[in-house]
C-alpha cells in the first residue's frame, strides 16, 4: 500500500480535497483542528521527513501548507489547512511532536501573525527586536 493510500484510508471523510499534480507532488486539504493528528501520522508513523511549511495570506484566509518528503519515492506530500479568521488566526503547534517544526512556526508567527497554540518557545526568529508589534510583513491588503 502506497503512502498516499495509507493517508487516504486513515483520514477518510476528513480530507476535503486531494490533488495529485504529478507523480511526485500531492496536495491534500484538511480542517485546522486535525493538523496535529495528521502531522503525527505522517512524521511518526509513515516516517516522512518534515521539509518545511509555507504560510500565505490569501483572500479566503491564512493558509498553511505543511510539506512532507517521502525520501524513498521522492514524493512531496503537502497538507493544506485554511484558517478563516484573519483577525486572530490560530492553530495547534506541531513543534511539540517534532522539534524540526519549531523554527518555521516561529517564523510564520512573526511574519504572518499566526498564533501556534502549545508552541514551547514562541519568540522572534528573523525580525529585529525593534520591529513594531502587530505588523506582519507577509500580510497583504487584499481589499485595496
Amino acid at each position, binding site marked *: 500500500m502506497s503512502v498516499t493510500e495509507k493517508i487516504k484510508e486513515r483520514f477518510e471523510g476528513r480530507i476535503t480535497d486531494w490533488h495529485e499534480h504529478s507523480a511526485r507532488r500531492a496536495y491534500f486539504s484538511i480542517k485546522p483542528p486535525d493538523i496535529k493528528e495528521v502531522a503525527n501520522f505522517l512524521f511518526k508513523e509513515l516516517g516522512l521527513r518534515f521539509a518545511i511549511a509555507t504560510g*500565505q495570506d490569501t483572500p479566503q484566509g491564512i493558509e498553511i501548507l505543511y510539506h512532507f518528503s517521502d525520501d524513498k519515492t521522492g514524493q512531496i506530500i503537502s497538507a493544506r489547512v485554511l484558517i478563516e479568521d484573519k483577525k486572530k488566526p490560530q492553530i495547534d503547534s506541531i513543534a511539540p511532536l*517534532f522539534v524540526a517544526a519549531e*523554527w518555521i512556526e516561529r517564523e510564520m508567527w512573526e511574519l504572518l501573525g499566526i498564533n501556534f497554540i502549545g508552541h514551547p518557545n514562541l519568540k522572534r526568529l*528573523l525580525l529585529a527586536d525593534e520591529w513594531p508589534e502587530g505588523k506582519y510583513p507577509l500580510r497583504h491588503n487584499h481589499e485595496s
Partner: protein
Amino acid sequence: MSHKVIIPIGPYHPLQEEPEFFRLYTEGEKVVDIDIVIGYMHRGIEELAEHKHFDQVAFLVERICGICSSSHPYAFVLAVEDIMGGEQNVVPERALYIRTIVDELQRLHSHLLWLGLAGHFIGYNTVWMWAWKYREPILEVFEMICGNRNHYAMSKIGGVRRDIRDMDIPVLKKTMDDLVPAVDMFKGAVMDDPVIQARLKGIGVLTREQAIEWAVVGPTARASGVNIDIRRDDPYGVFDKIDWNVIVEKDGDVFAKTKVRILEMYESINIIRQCLSKMPKGEIDANIKDVPPGEGIGRVEAPRGECFHYVKSDGTNRPIRHKIRAPSYMNVASNKVAAVGGTISDAAITLAAVDPCYCCTERLIVLDKATDKKLMNGWDLIRLSQEKTKKMQEGRL
C-alpha cells in the same frame, strides 16, 4: 555545586564570516545548553520576490547566497517548471546537462571552501591554504563558462542562459583531471592523519535518531547514517542518467561529515566527466513566455543539502507566493544537540561542521590614504573583471 557561565559567540566574531549568535551555557569546560539567534541577515527576499517578474526572481534568489548561487535559481526554476509539467517535459536535453555540470562544479568549490574553513577552525592552516588553492581553478572555469566566479546566472525558466562552448570542454576536462590528485592528497592528509582523527572523531555527534527528529539534510544527515540525497530521490537535471553513488557514513561526528564531503568530491568529478562525454548537441532554451496559474515545488541537492522552493502563480508575470527554505535552516538548528555535552574548545568546529551558509559578497574600495580619494570603485572592478573574462574567452590568458 554548579555554576553556569554564558559564553557568547557572535553576532560579530573573528571566527565567523556571517553574523549569527550562539550563546553557550557552560559548566566548567562543558557546554550544557546553547541558544541560537539568527536573523541578522534577513533581507525579506520572499516578500521581494512577489514584486519581481518571474525572470527577475531567478537573479534575485541567486543573491541569497554567494556559495550556493546555482542551487537557489535552479530550485526556483524547477518549481516554476513543475507548474508547467516538469523539468524533463519543458527543458531541452542539452540544457539539462549544462545545469547538472554547473550544479556539480558548485558542489566541488563549496566542499573545498568548507574543507579549508574546517582546517582553519582546528588550527590546521595548511589544509586551508591547499583547499583554497585547488578551489581557484574551479572558479576560473566558472568565469570561463558563465563570465563570473560566483553568481553564475545559468538557470532560467525553460533552459539555461548560455551554452558551454566546444572550446571550453577540454579546459573543463583538464581541470577535473588536475583535481583528482588534489582530492587524493586531501584524502590522505585529512582522513588518514592520526592527529585529525584524534581531533575530530567523536566530536559534535548527531545520532541517526536526532538527525531524523531535527529533519536535517545533506552531508549533515548523510554523515549520521540517513541515506537521503535529492539528486537520487527526486532526480532533476540528468542525475538519473548518470552512474554515481550517494556517500553515507554512520558515526555522525565531525570526522564523518568531513569524510562525506571529501568522498563526494570524487562523485562530482565523476558526474561532470560523464556529462561532458554524454552531452548532446542542440537547443539550450525552450523560450518560455508565460507561466500558467498553479503551484509548484522545486528542490535541488545544494552542497549543504536539500534546497526547497515553493512557487504559486496566478497567471500574471509575478509569483504570488514564493517560499524558500535553504538547507542550513534545518542544519543550524541541530547544533542544539550536536554542541551540547561537548567542551567549549570543540564548539567552534562543531558549529562549523554543518557548513552554515557563508556569503562571500564583500565589496571593495581602494582609497588613497593621503587624499582619501577613491582610486577604484565597484564599476572599475566590473570593468577589470569583464576585460579578464574577454581575454580568457579569446584564449589570451
